[in-house]
């Protein structure tokens, strides 16, 4: 399990290649990349604040939860903070498993939990002013998909 929280940019392709090459007994690798999205050409940049210490703990706990739920060879989470321009990579997760269903479900799960349970906050600076990105009800609702009865 690899959890990385850093300010500096990273290369998703390199990270994914390293991750995939680390095991030969896994047939499936799924990755998710989150990118600062340009909206109508208005976004100047995004400032990502986080809670040093808790961030690493929360990401580790979410990744451990994924490992306990699915049969995974490994999990990678890389998340940036600080000032990011449109088009820059915010974060990535990658999962590997023998067969594809586990890797897909685990990556989907990781993203749902990262979205609402990892202590990051985003402030967008646009031509119209600055605003904190609000959490969406649908992101909170998405967590219900993973409740075991």
């Amino acid at each position, binding site marked *: 399990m690899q959890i990385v929280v850093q300010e500096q940019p990273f290369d998703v392709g390199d990270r994914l290649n390293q991750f995939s090459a680390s095991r030969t007994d896994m047939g499936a690798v799924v990755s998710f990349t*989150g990118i600062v999205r340009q909206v109508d050409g208005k976004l100047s940049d995004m400032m990502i*604040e986080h*809670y040093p*210490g*808790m961030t690493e*703990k*929360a990401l580790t706990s979410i990744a451990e939860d994924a490992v306990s739920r699915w049969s995974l060879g490994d999990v990678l989470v890389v*998340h940036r903070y600080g000032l990011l321009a449109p088009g820059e990579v*915010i*974060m990535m997760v990658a999962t590997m498993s023998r067969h594809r269903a586990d890797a897909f479900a685990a990556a989907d799960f990781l*993203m749902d939990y*990262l*979205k*609402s*349970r*990892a*202590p*990051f*906050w*985003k*402030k967008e600076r646009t031509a119209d002013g600055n605003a*904190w*990105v*609000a*959490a969406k009800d649908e*992101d*909170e609702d998405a967590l219900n998909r993973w409740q075991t009865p």
Partner: protein
Amino acid sequence: MVNVLYFAWVRERIGLPKEQVETTAATVADLVSELKEREERYALAFSDLTALRVAVDQELTDFDAPLSGVREVAFFPPMTGG
């Protein structure tokens, strides 16, 4: 004595990221009540608790969590990672 941390717009409204608070509050909710008494900016930041989340010693919890033995309490809006 407990370290109190603020993030995102909670930090902006209160005007500082972190402070040490002398308190005998039994729960997070009691601590919030004490802080609201202090100054307008605290009252404003804590006016709607449904818009806030709290972590105690870096674990997400509820406002009725006990503060006994706690070193660090953090207040922030709902998280937006990913």
